[in-house]
């Protein structure tokens, strides 16, 4: 099979934090390629370094070592205006939604458009378009506190997609949501991926999410990627203790909520 060129290339990334006197190696020599158009997942237990790794992609975290290459261009040392331009091309959504609570849905989305220099009169039609995409046409003038978790995440997806990014980073985007809402967000993200061609990098510790939408997956443990490959292969034939641990945890929760998950869960792989 022909391999499309990587849209994201992380080369030997290390991220070190200085926590008082202690040095924390959150990410240790990670290299990975994300292919254009795929949904790439990163799984691992809490503290594994998933968020830190993904945040180097839009340079919310600057790697202590290594290079970040986006669409063939080394962006590791970008600053100022060029860095802002890069970030407009990489949307990001979070577990906590991170909307401006004191601004309406429309203004939250307008924020991203303004960041890209979209003139005022062009913002409103674009906001309507985005709200239609995420299924919240009637919520433009509502404040986030009046929305459910799933709706808030939809707004944050609209904000992240406002400037037609090539890449969407999702940090535990469904971890604060119940199963049904999660399903809705996942199918929206899959649609964004298929129809708009947005490459998605998705962090989660929920395997039920992973197996539903990831094309390929990397398993992280204490700052390293210990295993990666097509999702189906990795989960069917786990090589590492962590991966087995994650699967075990998933199976336990599967047994508990068994009735809620049907046979079709194997479909995404």
């Amino acid at each position, binding site marked *: 099979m022909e391999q499309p060129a990587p849209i994201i290339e992380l080369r030997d990334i290390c991220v070190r934090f200085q926590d008082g006197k202690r040095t924390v190696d959150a990410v240790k020599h990670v290299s990975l390629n994300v292919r254009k158009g795929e949904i790439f997942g990163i799984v691992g237990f809490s503290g594994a370094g998933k968020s830190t790794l993904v945040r180097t992609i*839009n340079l*919310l975290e600057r790697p202590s070592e290594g290079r970040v290459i986006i669409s063939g261009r080394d962006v590791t040392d970008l600053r100022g205006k060029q*860095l*802002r*331009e*890069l*970030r*407009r091309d*990489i*949307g*990001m959504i*979070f577990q*906590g939604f*991170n*909307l*401006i*609570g*004191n*601004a309406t849905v429309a*203004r939250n989305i307008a*924020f*991203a458009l*303004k*960041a*890209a220099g979209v003139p005022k009169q062009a913002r409103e039609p674009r906001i309507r378009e985005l709200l239609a995409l995420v299924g919240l046409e009637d919520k433009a003038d509502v*404040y*986030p*506190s009046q929305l459910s978790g799933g709706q808030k995440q939809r707004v*944050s997806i609209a*904000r*992240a997609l*406002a*400037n037609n990014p090539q890449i969407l*980073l999702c940090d535990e985007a469904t971890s604060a949501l119940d199963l049904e809402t999660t399903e809705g967000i996942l199918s929206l993200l899959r649609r964004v991926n298929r129809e708009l061609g947005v490459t998605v990098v998705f962090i989660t510790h929920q395997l039920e999410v992973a197996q539903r939408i990831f094309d390929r997956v990397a398993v992280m443990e204490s700052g390293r990627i210990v295993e990666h490959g097509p999702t189906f292969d990795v989960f069917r034939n786990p090589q590492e203790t962590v991966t087995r641990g994650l699967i075990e945890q998933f199976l336990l929760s599967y047994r508990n909520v068994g009735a809620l998950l049907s046979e079709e869960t194997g479909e995404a792989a």
Partner: protein
Amino acid sequence: MNWQSTLEILQDNLGKALADTFFMVSIATVVGVVFGTLLAIALFLTQHHLFSPNAAVNNVVGFVVNAIRSMPFLILLVVLIPLIQLIIGDPYTPLGGAIALSIAAIPFFARIAENSFTEVDSGLIEAAIATGAPTRQILCDAIFPQALPSFIRGIVLTVISLLGYSAMVGTIGAGGIGDMAIQFGYNRYETGVLIAIVVLLVVLVQVIQWVGDLIARAVIH
């Protein structure tokens, strides 16, 4: 206690005293909020790792702010008198009082505003940065609206503190209701005047607090 003379004194002096107090407190509030906010922005941006971390600038600004704040207002006032004299001539006027109050108000409000900025959820700030927005937009359209309720409470706190300080300015003869309390209530044993002013201050503070809370609540969504 002589009700007749108390009433007369109040009638003759209270209006002017209130006007002077209002003049001093409002000038100091405006100056304090404007310049304090600017200092707060400098402090906030230079300590935040995603904006412009700069320990040197942060320490210098922080030191100046703390230095002024650590001085009891009465001592600051005494230190400022020659300076005010240099600027406007007679420091023992409402304008002189307003200048002294303003200088106290700036660092006072700077810390309050800095606090209300740092209280803003860091996730929100990251999300804003991730959109590629410039710092100015992040400040004006994300951080500031989010900090607004606590910012307004900070203004109320500042106004109330300044009202207290303005009474101290009165003790050196710069006018206002503090001045009036000293002149009549203390120097001339007019206890009635003193009581009236105390009651007035209590009511004033309550009203300011009440209005401030109303506004702060109105801007939360």
